[in-house]
């Protein structure tokens, strides 16, 4: 195996230049996906190099997985073939920045944290709070279309991308969209690539529309007794004139997890709603007034969060899945996409299911978005037993009954082959499969990772 790997490395180094390909076992191990370790790590320094590498990978009948910082690499079926990691961390430059026009273009390896810092210098920001938080790379956020609770107010990554450059499986760099805020020329290839988890092409540059930084932001907490109260709050909130930046509901287990790094761990079995709004002093005052009124309806009270606590909570939420998976090696993390009104009901049914099956269910519901993240782990000895894979199917059925769907974002390596990450195919599956075939005929990109693994592809080995 090492011999073949060395051959590959020799081939690829010739193209990539010295230092941009590595077969060091440690380097390779860092890029393992679902227990599969690549033989080689390729680190292109330019978009052109990335495209050339893809071409040579295709020529040799190999398969790669594009990688950033790996905060969302757990999403997907186990790779059917994985020879080389295509690390995009070194592709991390700003290629265009027009602050007065609220437009920026960056390469995929830039982290969200670095980008936000640069933007803050000109009073701007990108209103995204994806899984992985500031460590997440732009390429990874887009590949996973990873949106957090800010989506309620601002939309998700797919709504902020104005244009993109994509390295294709046949070694080309193609452009879609542009650097203007409105553009309908040609098919919107960016939409297709966003959320395709690296299976269609490699994002080598993305252009975003930017937003003015909010002058003052405030976070409040409301402790509640039941999911019914949570539902009532969400209904009243969405029917009010308020437009908060984000709002989440954490059940008791999730609350403990997210706040465990925080000073205030009460061990309370109650749920918590966190809500953030921004604007001028008078706008913040208005929110405080109205949210107090909403809380009073549920016999609860509104507590302002301090500035540091504020940051901690939202950071903790972005890390929810990764933290759970690293703290409890047996945990399975799921993400349900649901109609807005089904959010609390899904969480309620998931908790019921957990009680019956003896599983701890930590749940975070993004209010007004329709997304619920669920962490499943065994009680009473969370370190021992891996949840039975049938639990995933049962929760998936609960989501489907409420008009939604569910994917697995984190799960123990040994469980992965027995779990359906993506769920049932729709009647548009064949079209998706054919698109994959049209863009990546040799299946060199993240082979087998997305939706039914595209196993009928002719180039499968």
């Amino acid at each position, binding site marked *: 195996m090492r011999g073949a790997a060395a051959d590959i490395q020799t081939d690829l180094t010739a193209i990539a230049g010295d230092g941009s390909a590595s077969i060091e076992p440690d380097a390779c191990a860092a890029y393992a996906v679902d227990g599969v370790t690549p033989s080689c790590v390729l680190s292109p320094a330019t978009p052109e190099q990335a495209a050339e590498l893809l071409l040579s990978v295709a020529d040799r009948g190999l398969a790669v997985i594009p990688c950033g910082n790996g905060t969302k690499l757990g999403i997907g079926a186990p790779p059917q073939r994985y020879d080389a990691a295509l690390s995009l961390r070194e592709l991390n430059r700003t290629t265009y920045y027009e602050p007065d026009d609220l437009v920026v273009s960056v390469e995929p390896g830039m982290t969200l944290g670095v980008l936000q810092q640069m933007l803050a210098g000109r009073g701007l920001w990108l209103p995204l709070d994806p899984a992985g938080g500031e460590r997440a790379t732009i390429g990874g956020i887009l590949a996973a279309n990873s949106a957090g609770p800010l989506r309620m107010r601002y939309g998700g990554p797919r709504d902020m991308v104005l244009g993109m450059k994509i390295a294709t499986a046949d070694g080309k760099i193609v452009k879609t969209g542009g650097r203007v805020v409105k553009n309908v020329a040609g098919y919107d290839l960016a939409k297709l690539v966003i959320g395709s988890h690296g299976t269609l092409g490699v994002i080598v540059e993305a252009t975003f529309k930017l937003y003015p930084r909010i002058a003052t932001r405030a976070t409040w907490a409301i402790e509640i007794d039941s999911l019914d109260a949570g539902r009532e709050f969400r209904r009243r909130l969405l029917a009010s004139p308020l*437009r908060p930046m984000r709002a989440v509901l954490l059940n008791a287990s999730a609350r403990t997890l997210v706040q465990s790094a925080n000073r205030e761990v009460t061990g309370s079995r109650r749920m918590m709603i966190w809500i953030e709004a921004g604007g001028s002093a008078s706008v913040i005052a208005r929110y405080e007034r109205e949210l107090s009124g909403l809380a009073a309806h549920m016999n609860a009270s509104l507590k302002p969060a301090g500035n540091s606590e504020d940051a901690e909570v939202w950071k903790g939420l972005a890390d929810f899945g990764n933290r759970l998976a690293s703290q409890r090696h047996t945990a399975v993390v799921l993400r349900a996409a649901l109609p807005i009104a089904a959010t609390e009901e899904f969480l309620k049914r998931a908790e019921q299911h957990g009680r019956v099956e003896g599983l701890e269910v930590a749940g975070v519901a993004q209010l007004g978005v329709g997304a619920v993240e669920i962490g499943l782990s065994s009680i009473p000895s969370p370190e021992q037993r891996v949840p039975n894979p049938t639990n995933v199917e049962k929760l998936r059925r609960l989501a489907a009954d409420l008009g939604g769907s569910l994917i697995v974002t984190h799960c123990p390596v040994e469980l992965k082959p027995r779990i359906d990450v993506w769920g049932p195919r729709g009647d548009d599956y064949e079209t998706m499969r054919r698109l994959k075939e049209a863009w990546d005929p040799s299946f060199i990109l993240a082979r087998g990772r997305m939706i039914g693994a595209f196993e009928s592809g002719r180039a499968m080995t």
Partner: protein
Amino acid sequence: MLYEYDALSSRRVPDAVVFPETTAEVSAIVKLAASAGLPVIARGAGTGLSGGAVVIEGGLVVSLARMKKILEIDIENERARVQPGVVNYDVSLAVADFGYCYVPDPSSQKACTIGGNVAENSGGPHTLCAGVTTNHVLGLEVVLPDGSVIHTGASHWDRPGYDLTGLMVGSEGTLGIVTEITVRLTRLPEAVKTLLAVYDRVSDATATVAAVTARGITPAALEMMDGFMLRAIEAATHAGYPLDAAAVLLLEIEGLKEEVEETSFELEAVATENHARSVRTARSAEERDLLWRGRKNAFGAIGRLAPNYYVQDGVIPRTRLVQMLDYIGEVEQRFGLHIGNIFHAGDGNLHPLILFDGRDPEQRKRVVQAAEAIMTRCVELGGSITGEHGVGIEKNELMPLIFSEDDLEMMRRIKSVFNPQALLNPGKVMPSGKVCGELRIQVN
């Protein structure tokens, strides 16, 4: 015959026009056409501005005008399910009592259909802060050219799989026929304020737009009209626009009362700093409606001034507005034509209106040259050839101005997955490769 036209002129006549009422009927029609090798052109209200529904080589026109039911309104989930023939404005009307609206609002919103909006990825003045059609569509039912029916997206965000909904929106009827649409509904704001800033110099108006963007103020809408347009509109609509101004900005802000109040002060200050002669706030809903009616009826008003006009749809970075308007002025002089400027200034989406007499072939030639010059400059400034009207048959030969052969090849691969025989809306969007960079102008 009416079906020879959308807004773009063409002399070809369809072989037949059909009016299906159900998805099954659309599927059956498409299958029949496929077996006969006939092109199929889907059509909504025919308000398109790039010839997307024009018949080029004959074939079957599938009018979706009778598929006009609002199938479901689901306020708690902030969505509605509609058939493609539903008129844009009717969606907002149907949900207004619940305090909601459907955001994209093209000027033709009282006539154009949601199906057409999806095909073109339509915009409108209020898409500045809230996004265009693609940001407001959750899922679609689509009839593919072989008659099969697929469902893309869902009635909520994030269905696993490729975002085929995002690909379909704006594909101008070349990938499938959309037979059902799930749209997102948006809560109406608590407060709205509309301001009219009046300028003696066009450059002061464009400088205001740049300053508003640079200061990080995001109005709900930011429209600009030059003096020529103002006078034309005022004669037709009596919207209360000043007749002697060089330009006006129509600014709208919405949100909480407090936000709107504060932002309106800020906007007034920015306008005044940039030498606005006056800034007027609409005092009533009627006054606001009147200001907007003028804007939305602008194209119609121009019809009174010349036998024909041609409207463009280029986009530029907002920092280049001053330069671009100067250039349009030069073009006006060079080709001896009247060009009115009315546009979504906040987006950098220009709509120069070129006036002419379509009966005069020499004038038509000059119009094409002027239009090509303007579009080329948009691209040179880092912009695009179309912001919201689509490519259609108007600009498909200009696609190489902004896309390389490799870019276009990836688009062709997508088209061949959906529409391998090219029977669906043939000749649109993608360049034919037969001619080089030729703009086909619309005669209105």
